[in-house]
């Protein structure tokens, strides 16, 4: 048998069921892998002792015949999910030392299903970034840079999650996606990243960035593993008023390999000026794979595509400025004493928030302020309606959309930091589906000329993750992509 850390979640599930391996051994192998990957800085906190104990408890459950769908599977948790009694920082100085007294709904579901937590994964501060460079705890390195000695970003904001899964230091990881924060790092690290429909996974206990855009979802090495993990993470939660009260289908059962007769839309507007030939080539290749598998490829139009990103940079900072008002130095986290209460607030927030977070809070405060609200925020919410209408019209003509995930592969650590807009353009292909709340997945599909992974994105109708997974599974099979960093 292959190394324990090379197993997929589905593979490990089968081996555990057969009794060929134990959860204790599987977790021990991953604890060692987390140590061996410490150069990547993928974790803010590791929890090897509680992981070993949880794995032993899993073996004991299995001996009694009580087995959950993820029993004994070691995973990483983005440090944006509150974990009871375990430091949760959002990669911000302002939350350093914060130990929640409650567990997020999504992680509670994972533990109920038997999963084992290896530690808390690094991210961009408050999930604001596309490179993992804004973390208070330092940047994460992409394992794909190791062999060439290049320090590449893993993407972001779920950069630690993606790096850990790609480096085989975790079998899967939770992430959150607000504008691309699961899909873009998955593409940069050569793994699968899934953003489900808005409302599919509860946001309760997830540190809020932009509430109407925040989507928890899984990062895994295969589409099947994504289907398994999302099946556990998803479900109605009365504690989140936007959680959808709809049944969770058996996502894994959707992986039939049969896409015959499905109509796959290719949105013309995603063919951007200056798009690299290798991205364009991979995109056509993806369409060919699906055509050969019996799907029908249709050209569709999403005219508002280029406006999704500037629209996002009004809505997301506006919501962030409201959500981050809670960090006041009074109830939890950092307090920097000032001359009076207002000065205490101002000094706490100036010292506690990093540069990018401050920038977004200021933009958000400005666009919501008296006299500018209509021109910016209200305008953006109208444009957002039109973006959703665009997708609805496209889905009259097709069952799903195929696009690239990112305009380029992973870049070097330190690049693009002096130009916020250049950094924001990372998310040009992922933001539209975020604005419309639609399910979208990034599948690793090929390598760039420099030997770095590139991803293709499949977007489907709201609450139709099954079609998304079925198509992604066929793309994955045709690409035959080996997710091992080299």
């Amino acid at each position: 048998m292959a190394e324990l850390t090379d197993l997929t979640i589905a593979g490990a599930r089968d081996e555990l069921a057969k009794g060929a391996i134990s959860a204790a051994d599987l977790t021990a192998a991953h604890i060692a892998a987390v140590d061996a990957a410490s150069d990547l800085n993928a974790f803010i906190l590791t929890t090897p002792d509680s992981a070993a104990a949880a794995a032993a408890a899993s073996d004991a459950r299995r001996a009694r015949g009580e087995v959950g769908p993820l029993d004994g599977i070691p995973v990483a948790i983005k440090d944006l999910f509150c974990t009871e009694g375990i430091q949760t920082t959002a990669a911000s100085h302002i939350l350093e030392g914060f130990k929640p007294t409650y567990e997020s709904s999504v992680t509670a579901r994972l533990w109920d299903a038997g999963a084992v937590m290896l530690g808390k994964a690094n991210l961009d501060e408050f999930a604001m970034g596309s490179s993992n460079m804004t973390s208070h705890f330092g940047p994460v390195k992409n394992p794909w840079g190791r062999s060439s000695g290049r320090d590449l970003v893993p993407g972001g904001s779920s950069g630690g999650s993606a790096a850990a899964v790609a480096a085989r230091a975790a079998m899967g990881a939770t992430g959150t996606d607000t504008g691309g924060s699961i899909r873009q790092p998955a593409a940069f690290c050569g793994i699968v990243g899934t953003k489900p429909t808005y409302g599919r996974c509860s946001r309760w206990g997830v540190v809020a960035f932009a509430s109407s855009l925040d989507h928890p979802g899984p990062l895994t090495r295969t589409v099947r593993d994504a289907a398994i993990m999302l099946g556990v993470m998803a479900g109605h939660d009365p504690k989140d008023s936007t959680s959808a009260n709809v049944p969770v289908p058996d996502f894994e059962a959707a992986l039939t390999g049969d896409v015959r007769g499905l109509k796959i839309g290719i949105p013309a507007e995603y063919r951007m000026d200056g798009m690299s030939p290798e991205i364009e080539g991979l995109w056509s290749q993806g369409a060919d794979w699906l055509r050969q598998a019996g799907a029908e490829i249709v050209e569709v139009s999403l005219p508002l595509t280029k406006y999704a990103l500037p629209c996002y940079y009004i809505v997301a900072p506006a919501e962030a400025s409201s959500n981050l008002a809670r960090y006041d130095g009074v109830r939890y986290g950092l307090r920097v004493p000032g001359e009076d209460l207002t000065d205490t607030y101002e000094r706490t927030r100036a010292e506690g928030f990093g540069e990018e977070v401050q920038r977004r809070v200021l933009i958000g405060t400005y666009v919501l302020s008296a006299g500018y609200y209509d021109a910016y925020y209200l305008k953006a919410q109208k444009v957002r309606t039109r973006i959703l209408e665009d997708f609805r019209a496209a889905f009259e003509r097709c069952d799903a959309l195929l696009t690239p995930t990112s305009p380029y592969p992973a870049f070097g650590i330190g690049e693009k930091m002096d130009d916020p807009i250049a950094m924001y353009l990372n998310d040009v292909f992922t933001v539209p589906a975020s604005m419309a709340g639609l399910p979208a997945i990034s599948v690793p599909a090929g390598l760039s000329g420099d030997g770095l992974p590139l991803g293709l994105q499949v977007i489907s109708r709201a609450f139709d993750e099954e079609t998304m997974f079925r198509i992604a599974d066929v793309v994955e099979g045709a690409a035959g992509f080996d997710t091992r960093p080299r």
Partner: protein
Amino acid sequence: MALDKQTVARVARLARIHTNDDQLDALARQLSNILGWIEQLREVDTDQTAPMTSVAEMTLAMREDRVTDGAYPEKVLANAPVRTDDFYTVPKVVE
């Protein structure tokens, strides 16, 4: 739209973020760049469009109006930077 230093200082005050005078020029430049880029949204015709209020087509569920949670001050105050008994403590605000 170009923001001047005074506007940035006012917004920072609204956002309760302390700024030093020497930061304001750079911030004004960065924020102006971002806002200038955002302004392309003006090209989009939204005269007949209603602003989005919810991305998911759902009505919020109603629940019975009663207390369902609480009565654990130790948990609530567990992360307080400064506390006295069962209260958060802040600098004096009344003279």
